[in-house]
């Protein structure tokens, strides 16, 4: 168990709803859900959600901490906002899904090698480094995440697309050497570090 996780278990005991309210982005909305089920039919990857947003909200209230945080479901969220515009109680469902996923990731409870978890992490790390996304490095990182052999296979499979993009001037092979970046990178990093420090302190996530 990660240190963050044992600390959280200790602190909230059996009150998972309160833990979500205090630590998950927009978590204070969960208690407003009236279980109407509208959101459950909204997700584009619906059949692949073991627990729909509606179910997840019910499980949170029932204190099913382990099941919720280790669920693969919220990682299926495509940020399409179908649910948000339909929910009669106007819950920011998209952000609660992101918040649950992010919190589970932070505690080390999210499913291992969940592809969206890996991609989302790569994406943030890529942008946090230079301030802007380097699409080439992101693509390569994605292909090679499972190791060299499978990476080369994926890359070869996608080669015609990649070359087409280069030819159309929509992917820059020179990005490997650096690419777009900010002038005030130092300031950018300082903002992120400070923001993270404030958030962690507020949520009691200090290690």
């Amino acid at each position: 168990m990660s240190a963050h996780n044992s600390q959280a278990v200790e602190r909230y005991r059996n009150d998972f709803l309160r833990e979500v309210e205090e630590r998950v982005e927009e978590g204070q909305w969960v208690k407003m859900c009236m279980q109407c089920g509208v959101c459950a039919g909204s997700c584009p990857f619906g059949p692949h959600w073991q627990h729909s947003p509606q179910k997840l909200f019910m499980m949170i209230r029932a204190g099913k901490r382990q099941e919720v945080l280790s669920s693969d479901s919220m990682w299926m969220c495509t940020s399409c906002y179908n649910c948000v515009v339909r929910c009669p109680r106007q819950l920011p469902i998209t952000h609660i899904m992101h918040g649950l996923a992010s919190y589970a990731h932070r505690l080390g409870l999210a499913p291992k090698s969940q592809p969206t978890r890996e991609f989302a992490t790569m994406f943030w790390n890529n942008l946090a480094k230079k301030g802007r996304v380097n699409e080439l490095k992101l693509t390569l990182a994605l292909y090679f995440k499972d190791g060299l052999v499978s990476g080369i296979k994926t890359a070869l499979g996608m080669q015609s697309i990649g070359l087409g993009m280069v030819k159309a001037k929509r992917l820059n092979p020179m990005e490997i050497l650096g690419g777009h970046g900010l002038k005030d990178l130092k300031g950018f990093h300082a903002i992120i570090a400070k923001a993270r420090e404030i958030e962690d302190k507020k949520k009691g996530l200090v290690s």
Partner: protein
Amino acid sequence: MAKKEYAFYPGCSSQLKASASNYLTSVNSMCKTLDVKLTEIPDWNCCGASIGYAEGGELPRIAINARNFALAETHLPGQDIVATCAACWLGARESKDRLDENSVLMKETNEALAAAGLHYKAEVKVRHMVEVLIEDFGYDELKKPVKKPLEGVKFAGYVGCQTNRPFGIAGESFENPKYLDKMVETLGGEPVESYDQKVTCCGGALAFSEPDKSQKQIRDIVESAYDHGAEMIVTPCPLCQANVEVYQSEINKKQGTKFNMPVLYYSQLMSVAYGGSMKDAGLDGQLIRATRLEEIAKK
């Protein structure tokens, strides 16, 4: 009409030689005709996109968006921020709304910004390019400069998610937004109004991490355009454009379809209709060539 000025937030994908660089090219051409001056926010950073959530957390994401606002307020005072990328617009506008509503978040954000000597005053407005076209110009104004109407070309207007939800364009419905159809009409083309996958999600960033699930969405989006007689798809969103164009060959390979449907930006249509060359409109940046538009551009 007097020159209109905006603080421009192009986003990562619209940079030179990035996946939506042809979007930027066509936006510049369109703005030249409409006498719009876009000044890039100096040293802008990426918005974090929706997919940044897992590792980014809440405050860091809001703070990097506020950095862009603070830079715009300082260097381009009084100008609205205009984004061309749906995800940038959404990320920025959501951050702004949350900051405006929540004084604690505002205080914390400014504490973080102070680490780089910046301060956000909450004066700036965040808008999508489509909003600017519709609200600051209007269809009648947009029609005036048309030199080469896109006669006889049938377009399926694919709005997608994030330009449409949760904010959308004022006066449009979430289920059946009509502005792309109206734009096509304004430019002399034929909108395929019966197109029924207008607001279907293409999978967004999950096209990378969950390719099969996303390609099922994309297949529906393209197939329906064919079924309703469209020759091309037009969209306002760079990720929609890339997903729907780039994966057609993959889907053909895996599922034996014969998709070859060009996917364009509204701004490319405008550039061509306003008399721009193939290059002005970024048509040379298509993976699936838009032959009929190229012909009109060459006329």
